């Protein structure tokens, strides 16, 4: 939403009555000097027309926000022409305000719960419900085409209402959502005749034992993208096969683990036009009746257009070479659900010269990362997840892998790296080798771990990253960090918008450095760090300019939180309780605060106290 939104509604003006009059026809070549019947407000009327025609081309929301500040007329016209609305925090405003401000919305992107909720740091049923949004939009935006939700609670009823209310609905994307099941999906599949995109990504979907694949209409569909890898329920393969055959525009298909390798093989033979494939389970059923194994490689060979591969659940590594025919074309490869050893991995990656996005488990080891570095010179994004996500696990990747990547992949822009051992030297090297870095997220899984070679804190490494990577917008830190690291962040993190801190820092000064520096900071999430009231107060000059602040298991007192709430009336200050109802707790368990145009929410559950 516009960060500097004016609260006033446009004044009643003659413009409104002018709009209802017929416009005299003008040829586009002439300047707009046509005479209209009521020449008094003529220039305003023309100006509004012109503005509308011009502003509709503005796509970037920052441009639009800026345009809407010019004057009331621009504010109004921009509101009429904005077709795609992004709302980074669903509680920053009410649905009614949305529909009053923007009249012709076709696409909504809505985000709900804070990210740390993904890691069980918040009880369920906190909020972020889709229901009020869909019911308000059902009346206001009959021509809505696209809804993209992240961390929102969506019920089957919400999905049914959506399916029934928007006849032209085209795209439904649900990322990290929950609250619905295959029955809700079935309604969407059945009712949204113009559906192009149905993407369920990392969402929790209840198995209602509904054959939702069969609910798609029987004629040729408009489907371009269908992703259901997170749906933990068996599907009707025959129906899926028939669906794929009658979906000539289908380019992206992400299957769940209940689709076997043989079935994928059949699908591929019938859908060679796919550009993005998420395989189901990648193992051969030894009990199948066929005498000969299907030629899986042939199926992949037939898919000349596949550039993005993912899936590989329940992998039998000996079948991995089947994908070799498409490797040379791949720009994106996701092995992050596959436990692949370096020996199995290297022959595959050596053929992936065009790879730009690579996700994998740390089972490929430093050795595998060295192979990536040697081959994938175009790499932009790397994510390495832990096969064994525990603090005390072995940790097969280390600073060696990261260093190799930094030396081989100079165009790297985004890194997410889970490891057990890291050194400052590797981070310093990366900061010099990869100047294009915009996202750097390092998770050293053992808490408070220092540089394992020198024994020092990881301050200098992260300091180098913020200092040398001048385009850095997102940073997540870990390992043993003193206040010095935060001094670097505050001083050099000029473009940082998102900062994640866990088990780090020595004192309030650390947080103060960040709050008094980092001019672009929007989203701050902190857990288990020794930051208290002094630090919290030091940021009061900027909380209105941020999307949210999350601080859990820190040293904040209730009194201070109340002070902040009192001093900043447009800030919603939520204190989220814990199972311990001790009134005399010294510190607040979780503080989550965010600006809001419409005051505190009415749907807060019992464990949330809004100050």
């Amino acid at each position, binding site marked *: 939403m516009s960060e500097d939104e004016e609260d006033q509604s446009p004044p009643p003006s003659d413009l409104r009555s002018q709009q209802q009059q017929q416009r005299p026809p003008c040829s586009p070549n002439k300047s707009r000097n046509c005479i209209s019947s009521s020449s008094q407000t003529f220039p305003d009327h023309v100006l509004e027309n012109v503005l509308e025609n011009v502003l509709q081309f503005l796509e970037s929301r920052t441009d639009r926000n800026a345009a809407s500040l010019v004057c009331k007329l621009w504010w109004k016209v921009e509101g009429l022409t904005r077709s795609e609305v992004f709302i980074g925090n669903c509680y920053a405003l009410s649905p009614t305000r949305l529909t009053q401000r923007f009249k012709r919305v076709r696409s909504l992107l809505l985000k709900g719960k804070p990210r*740390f909720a*993904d890691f069980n740091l918040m009880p369920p049923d906190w909020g972020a419900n889709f229901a009020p949004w869909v019911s308000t939009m059902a009346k206001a935006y009959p021509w809505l085409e696209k809804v993209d939700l992240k961390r929102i609670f969506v019920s089957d009823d919400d999905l049914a209402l959506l399916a029934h209310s928007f006849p032209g609905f085209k795209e439904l994307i649900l990322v990290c959502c929950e609250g619905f099941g295959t029955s809700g999906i079935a309604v969407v599949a059945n*009712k949204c005749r113009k559906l192009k995109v149905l993407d369920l990504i990392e969402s929790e979907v209840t198995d209602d034992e509904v054959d939702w694949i069969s609910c798609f209409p029987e004629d040729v569909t408009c489907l371009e993208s269908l992703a259901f890898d997170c749906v933990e329920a068996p599907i009707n393969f025959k129906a899926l096969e028939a669906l794929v055959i009658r979906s000539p525009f289908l380019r992206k298909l992400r299957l769940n683990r209940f689709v076997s390798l043989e079935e994928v093989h059949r699908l591929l033979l019938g859908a060679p036009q796919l550009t993005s494939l998420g395989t189901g389970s990648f193992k051969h059923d030894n009990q199948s009746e066929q005498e000969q194994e299907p030629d899986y490689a042939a199926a992949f060979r037939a898919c000349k257009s596949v550039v993005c591969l993912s899936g590989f659940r329940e992998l039998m590594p000996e079948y991995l070479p089947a994908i070799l025919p498409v490797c040379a074309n791949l720009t994106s490869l996701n092995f992050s659900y596959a436990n692949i050893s370096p020996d199995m991995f290297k022959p595959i990656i050596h053929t992936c010269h065009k790879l730009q996005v690579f996700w994998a488990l740390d089972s490929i080891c430093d050795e595998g990362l060295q192979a990536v570095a040697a081959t994938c010179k175009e790499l932009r994004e790397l994510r390495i997840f832990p096969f*064994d996500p525990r603090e005390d696990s072995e940790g097969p990747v280390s600073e060696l892998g990261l260093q190799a990547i930094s030396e081989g992949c100079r165009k790297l822009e985004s890194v997410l790296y889970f490891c057990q051992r890291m050194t400052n030297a590797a981070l310093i090297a990366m900061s010099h080798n990869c100047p294009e870095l915009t996202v750097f997220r390092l998770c050293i899984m053992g808490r408070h771990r220092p540089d394992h070679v020198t024994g020092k804190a990881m301050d200098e490494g992260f300091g180098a990253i913020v200092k040398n990577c001048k385009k850095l917008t997102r940073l997540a830190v870990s390992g043993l960090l003193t206040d010095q690291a935060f001094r670097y962040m505050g001083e050099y993190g000029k473009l940082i918008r998102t900062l994640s801190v866990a088990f780090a820092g020595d004192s309030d000064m650390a947080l103060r450095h960040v709050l008094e520096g980092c001019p672009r900071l929007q989203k701050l999430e902190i857990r288990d760090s020794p930051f208290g009231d002094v630090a919290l107060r030091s940021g009061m000059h900027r909380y209105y300019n941020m999307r949210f602040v999350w601080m*859990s298991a820190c040293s904040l007192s209730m009194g201070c939180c109340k002070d902040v709430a009192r001093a900043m009336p447009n800030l919603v200050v939520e204190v989220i309780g814990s199972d311990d109802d001790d009134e005399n707790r010294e510190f607040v368990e979780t503080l989550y605060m965010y600006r809001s145009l419409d005051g505190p929410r009415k749907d807060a559950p019992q464990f949330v106290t809004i100050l």
Partner: protein
Amino acid sequence: MIGQLMNLKETELCLGLPGAAETLDTPARSAVGNKRGFSETVDLMLNLQSNKEGAIDLNNATASKQKTLLKNTVKPPAKSQVVGWPPVRNSRKNIMTNQKTSGAEDASSEKAGNGGGGATGAALVKVSMDGAPYLRKVDLKIYKSYQDLSDALAKMFSSFTMGNYGAQGMIDFMNETKLMDLLNSSDYVPSYEDKDGDWMLVGDVPWEMFVESCRRLRIMKGSEAIGLAPRAMEKYSKNRS
């Protein structure tokens, strides 16, 4: 007290290392470092006992849990497990343990309120109707009789079509009375799955007993109901005529 603790441990699914389970008996917590999770009923945890073989075997988990607990009582654990750390989403963790979604299913059935377990006092069951595009969930405890339930179901399923969007090839749930006719006719037969997993016809036991034993409801076509207990069928048609 230890005995009670052991019982709690027995019934909960726990994410923990051997000897590193969350200590239930530490009253003093520092704000930094030892974040303990929310109450166990809220926090769904998976037991990752790391055997050398690497395979996770839930059948052995209870045995090893007991071993863990005994270790706990002897000496404090080396490092207590921290909630949400490392920051890996549950969906990723679940896949990696290669489990047959027993954990995930519990999580999702909690949401669905599957048949009487978990939710406090409510008897939530799923209701499906052949031909209807999606399921509903009802809390049987809010109804007093079969008639109440029948009325509520008619209301629920009649709302499937709104306006002009009648589904092709699907039954036309146009209005309540029509639906009531369908339900009352021999074309549609309400059946339910009881706690033994058998499908029975609705109406053959007293209401309270029905609420206790019903796990889910299915309104099926008459032709499909032939497989159900013939005695119940007879009794049913006797009641209807």
